[in-house]
């Protein structure tokens, strides 16, 4: 054959490969540790609500919402090799579903306030079903999943992947923001949906409600984490990693990688949607600015910082970056952009496996030293 015969499976432009391949054994998949998980769960569910003042607890709830998105990104990107930089779109879709419900509830049969300002006279048909909380919640998850499923089917079936896919999701985020902003009478425009006071009869400003919401978010995150971990330990999880590392080879095992990727993408979008729905009552607003390219990228970076190959790392990254952002902007605002930029560069260059990877390396060093002693 001529030398154009198949090379090692890596043309730089398309292959999602890693210079330093992740440590081969998927350690997180084989170490069972219900005790450790319980400890963290207790800390999050009992200690945090008791120790944190309401303002901080509310912030933590917000970070945990981002952590849910991070979990989805970890699944799609870390495990499945699909870099999504449009995750904000799904987050926003969930958020808007919840926001629409709250807005209609607030209006109590009248038109929502922003529609009045925008000169809308009758409730648009699109809004009608969101009067039902059940529909809104279901849509918050199913809507993003359906959109991701559609995009995934269109894109993955045609074997668009890697950088192309990343760029398309980015363009999707940009286009969605423009669409939301432009349809002001329908979406509230740049202002988004805000001014919510009540959720299921509970005063959203009350500390008790916020504590309850925090617990809901924490429990949802915990459940999703366990579910995702279970998924990864299954054959499907192995298949997902196989798709990440050698998509074409998987085809020759008789699987259709497009299906695997589309499903995973949809699951991760569903997580983002749920996170968005939880975010709205916690923070009190959903607006296009929350789902554009920049917030989407920030989420991805948070996952990279935490450690993309580890689900726990993805969660950790979202929480740490959220807290870092708040702390920094309280101390010196201008520094945040420098710090954020520098942080990506350092993490991507020196610790591509993120905090989780660093912790792993440190632990290995420690245990090997102990073994020698």
């Amino acid at each position, binding site marked *: 054959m001529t030398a154009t015969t198949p090379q090692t499976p890596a043309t*730089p*432009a398309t292959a999602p490969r890693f210079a330093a391949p992740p440590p081969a054994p998927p350690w997180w998949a084989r170490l069972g540790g219900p005790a450790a998980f319980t400890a963290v769960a207790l800390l999050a569910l009992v200690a945090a609500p008791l120790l944190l003042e309401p303002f901080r607890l509310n912030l933590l709830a917000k970070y945990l919402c981002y952590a849910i998105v991070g979990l989805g990104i970890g699944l799609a990107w870390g495990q499945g090799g699909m870099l999504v930089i449009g995750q904000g779109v799904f987050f926003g879709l969930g958020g808007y579903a919840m926001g629409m419900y709250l807005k209609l509830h607030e209006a109590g049969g009248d038109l929502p306030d922003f529609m009045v300002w925008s000169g809308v006279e009758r409730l648009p048909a699109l809004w009608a079903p969101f009067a039902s909380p059940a529909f809104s919640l279901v849509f918050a998850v199913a809507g993003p999943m359906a959109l991701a499923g559609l995009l995934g089917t269109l894109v993955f079936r045609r074997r668009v992947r890697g950088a192309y896919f990343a760029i*398309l999701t980015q363009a999707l985020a940009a286009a969605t923001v423009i669409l939301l902003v432009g349809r002001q009478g329908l979406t509230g425009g740049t202002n988004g949906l805000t001014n919510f006071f009540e959720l299921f009869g509970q005063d959203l400003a009350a500390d008790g409600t916020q504590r309850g919401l925090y617990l809901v978010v924490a429990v949802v995150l915990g459940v999703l984490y366990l579910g995702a971990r279970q998924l990864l330990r299954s054959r499907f999880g192995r298949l997902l990693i196989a798709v990440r590392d050698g998509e*074409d080879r998987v085809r020759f095992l008789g699987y259709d990688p497009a299906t695997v990727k589309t499903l995973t993408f949809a699951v991760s979008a569903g997580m983002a949607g749920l996170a968005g729905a939880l975010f709205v009552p916690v923070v009190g607003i959903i607006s296009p600015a929350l789902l554009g390219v920049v917030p989407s990228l920030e989420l991805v*970076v948070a996952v*990279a910082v935490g450690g993309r190959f580890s689900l726990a790392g993805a969660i950790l990254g979202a929480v740490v970056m959220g807290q870092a952002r708040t702390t920094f902007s309280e101390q010196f605002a201008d520094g945040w952009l420098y710090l954020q930029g520098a942080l*990506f560069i350092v993490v991507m260059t020196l610790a591509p496996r993120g905090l989780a990877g660093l912790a792993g390396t440190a632990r290995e060093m420690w245990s090997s030293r102990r073994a020698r002693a």
Partner: protein
Amino acid sequence: MGAVINQLPIGLSIAAVLLLIALGLTFTFGQMGVINMAHGEFIMAGAYTAYLLQDWAGRQAVPVALPVAFVVAGLMGLVLERTLIRRFYGRPLDTLLLTWGVSLLLQQLARDLFGAPNVQVRAPEFLEGGLGVLPYNRLFIMALAAGGVLAIWIYLNRTAQGRRMQAVMQNRQLAAVMGIDTGRVDMRTFFIGSGLAGVAGVALTLVGPVGPALGTYYIVDAFLVVVAGGLGALRGAVAAALALGLLNSYAEFWTDASLAKVVVFAAVIAFLQVRPRGLFVLRSRALT
């Protein structure tokens, strides 16, 4: 019918802007698989170069700045390539995040150096006025884009350096086996690709704002051009820029600017259904 004819030059001029920006990207993305999110900030650097040169060149700053900005942005690209990107070959997705970090740093740096408000770059006298609906500054940008394409074509096909660059673009390992110093070629590619961004930046001072956020306004569209055009294909970039530019201008004319953006995105997705790897693509048998 009048609208169709009237919008044509506007579409072409949008295409020219897109092409100028995307030209450098096709290089760095196509050859090296680097998704350079900091490309927008190299454009910004070019624009600020023109701004700074005003002290010295006055209203001739724009033409004077073209070569200077090419070198300035090119050197920035070179430094980026040497210090960071070289560690990331074969990890295109990581370069995306890495260079995004770089772009944040550069934006903040521009804010600290030049202030957050936009600065003014005065257009030279000879670019005032125009032919019909087409102002001279638009013609200038179109000429610049055409000149850029021509120069690159000549470089790629008529010089030894350019041929080496093509060889690396088509098969990096093999080129290395052949004794081509791929490291040098990468450096050169990045220099040229980034330098073109600088040139684009100078051109953009004629039609748009000059401020720290300049790069962010163009980067998404530019990437769409690259995706639709196909990796590293010069003719692909030209065709895609033309198509997207015209589509943009007509869609905006018949609907509105917001909807036009959405239409363009939908069109690219639809197009990828037909040509998943873009318009023109180098056939490769590599298994990924």
